[in-house]
């Protein structure tokens, strides 16, 4: 075998290796950043949750799972978790279910010109800062001069007037309502795009077969936009468990911790209670919940796609 016949073989063997190396180099910076800023903090957070320590003391104490036991015995933790679950449930109903109905209605029932205007109107709240929205709704909920009680008085329902954010029974619902108002238009926009991508022929043949609008919605629209609704369920559930600003601005978790969510309780435990290890444990629980919600939804979507 002469040299000329060997060289090409060497070249073809080396090229993929070099290409792989080059590709790895391209990916390396992003990978390093993800490891440093995403995975390392997660692992460190889990490690920290096994310690008791104060920001003001150099002493740290390994306590094993005691922070998790503390959470299990902490009524505020359970109240916060329950509030997050309520937040997630209401958000899925409104920001996925009701938003899909609205998106379909906008496409089916509303004229093109009005449709554009309505989409903009629905989207505007999503463009307003959360702090501004929180303060705005604080005014709306004010017991004596607020719009909500004013409207109730005006329509003769004075008996329903309430200190919406001041009553432990209604405070979290006041925050959840505000959140739906703000995010509803955004998810409607996303779902409108998904509905527009459904082939028109499917609707036409359904109409020819005598299917009404409701039937068409459930048999064509819902299955055809499943990918988008799946994604939105993951996003809304994750966001519901990571909620923080809304509660902090409107109620600060009160009254009597009734509107605490895991995020605000973590913050309060860390910076007011100076119990950093416990705060890390709450953070780990939040991570596990959102991770599980995302994983379950992904597995479910893949199974459906495979079928």
């Amino acid at each position, binding site marked *: 075998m002469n040299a000329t016949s060997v060289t090409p073989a060497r070249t073809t063997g080396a090229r993929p290796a070099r290409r792989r190396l080059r590709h790895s180099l391209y990916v390396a910076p992003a990978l390093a950043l993800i490891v440093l800023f995403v995975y390392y903090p997660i692992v460190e957070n889990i490690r920290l949750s096994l310690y008791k320590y104060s920001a003001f003391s150099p002493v740290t104490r390994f306590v094993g799972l005691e922070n998790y036991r503390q959470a299990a015995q902490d009524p505020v933790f359970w109240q916060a978790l329950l509030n997050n679950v309520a937040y997630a449930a209401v958000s899925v109903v409104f920001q996925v279910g009701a938003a899909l109905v609205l998106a379909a209605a906008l496409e089916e029932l509303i004229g093109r010109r009005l449709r554009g205007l309505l989409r903009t109107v629905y989207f505007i709240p999503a463009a307003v800062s959360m702090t501004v929205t929180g303060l705005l709704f604080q005014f709306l909920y004010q017991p004596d001069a607020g719009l909500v009680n004013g409207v109730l008085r005006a329509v003769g329902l004075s008996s329903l007037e309430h200190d919406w954010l001041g009553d432990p029974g209604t405070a979290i619902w006041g925050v959840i309502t505000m959140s739906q108002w703000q995010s509803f238009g955004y998810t409607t926009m996303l779902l409108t795009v998904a509905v527009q991508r459904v082939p028109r022929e499917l609707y036409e043949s359904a109409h020819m077969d005598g299917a009404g609008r409701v039937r068409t919605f459930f048999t064509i629209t819902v299955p055809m936009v499943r990918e988008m609704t799946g994604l939105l369920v993951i996003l809304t559930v994750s966001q519901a468990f990571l909620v923080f600003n809304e509660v902090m601005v409107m109620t600060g978790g*009160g009254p009597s911790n009734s509107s605490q969510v895991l995020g605000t309780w973590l913050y309060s435990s860390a910076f007011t209670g100076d119990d950093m290890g416990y705060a890390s444990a709450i953070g780990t629980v939040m991570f596990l919940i959102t991770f599980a919600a995302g994983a379950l939804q992904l597995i479910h979507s893949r199974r459906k796609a495979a079928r």
Partner: protein
Amino acid sequence: MRPAAVISVCLLTLLLTACGQAPIRTTPGDFTLSGRPSGHLTVLEKWADPEYAPYFEEAARAYEKRNPDVTIELQAVGDQPYKDRIAVLAAARRLPDIYFSWPGRYAGKFADGKMAADLTSQLKNTTWGRSFEPEALDAFTFRGRIHGVPLDMDAKVLVYNKRIFAKAGVREPRTFPALLTACDRIEKAGYVPIAFGNQYGWPAGHLLTQFNAMEVPPAVLARDYAGRGGDGAFHHPGYVRALEDLRRLRERCFAPGGTSMSHESAQARLLYGKAAMQYVETLEFSYLSEAGGAPKSFARDWDFFALPAMPGAAGSPRALAGGTDGLMVSGNSPDKALAVDFLRFLTSRTRARALVHDLGWLSSVKGTADAGTLRGLPKAQRTIAGHDMAVWLDTAADDKIVNPYLSAAESVLSGRMTPQRAIVEVRRGAEQARRFGVRP
């Protein structure tokens, strides 16, 4: 801040802790300046409000002008951001040379963690130390050692609209039952007796600070607040009576809806003649003046009195909720002598008088109240001098007790819990704090 960010901050804290500095032992020699002052000082405080910040910036510039070889890096943030930032810096052992502190346990944490320089040699039985009101220095004294320099004095009093009091035929009440009777009369006259906004919980905490101090013996209170009460913590009957006092105020003096209203919104009711009284900090007096935005009708016609005690209470009948804010020198500061020199300048009689004049605050430096032009300041000074200062519950008590206590107070205020049930919740919180305590 989003939770992910909070978690990251916590993690960053740990990372920084790992490479942080070990505390340095303070010796009196650390405070001796060698030659002319020179160097760089970092200062972190919480007076970011546009009304207050210029005073501190001007003071720093004045010191720099007097000492051309010194530069001061002054950072001011709001109340809550300050708590967040100082916690992160403390955990990282990267405290600025000079930093703000509330009195009581809050300052004690820095002293216990050896993060605050021991200033006893500079302040005990020295000319500088004697220039301060004694109770102001006491607020930063832990186990006999002084760890902070007091700057201002603050107390909570009941400010009232004299015109409404006259219309309702009410005079300044001398006892707590007389206050409740006054509330009834004011309500009959068509006004809200006491404007109260408790959106963020601390106004109820301030009321409880005073009620607890009036109803519970000081030694018991100090022991329980510090988390040293053991199984008997918060069992003194005075705690229930304090919560009952709070409930009585709600029933007879507050308007409905105070739980979700901010303190500032409630204050508007006082300023615009809808409410007769409000429980106000003396630091807030500037807001009650025309220059501070109050209408002329109110700004010229108000007075105040200390919240009166229930006769026969077991605590101090002359308790007054309040505190003194101060500044501490980092135990790790490489230039403690320069830091102390700047603090001497900041609390000199001239600067203290400027603080009273420019900000309308009471200074912790003796004999400065007459420098102010604000209505009520000299009387406030006399009131503080004639009472026993009860440091704010949220800075005096152990961190883990504060949340259950404020939460229980909110439940009493909203009528969802009796005082007896509320104190059980507080005991449970104290027990949890003991069982899962942070400190070894």
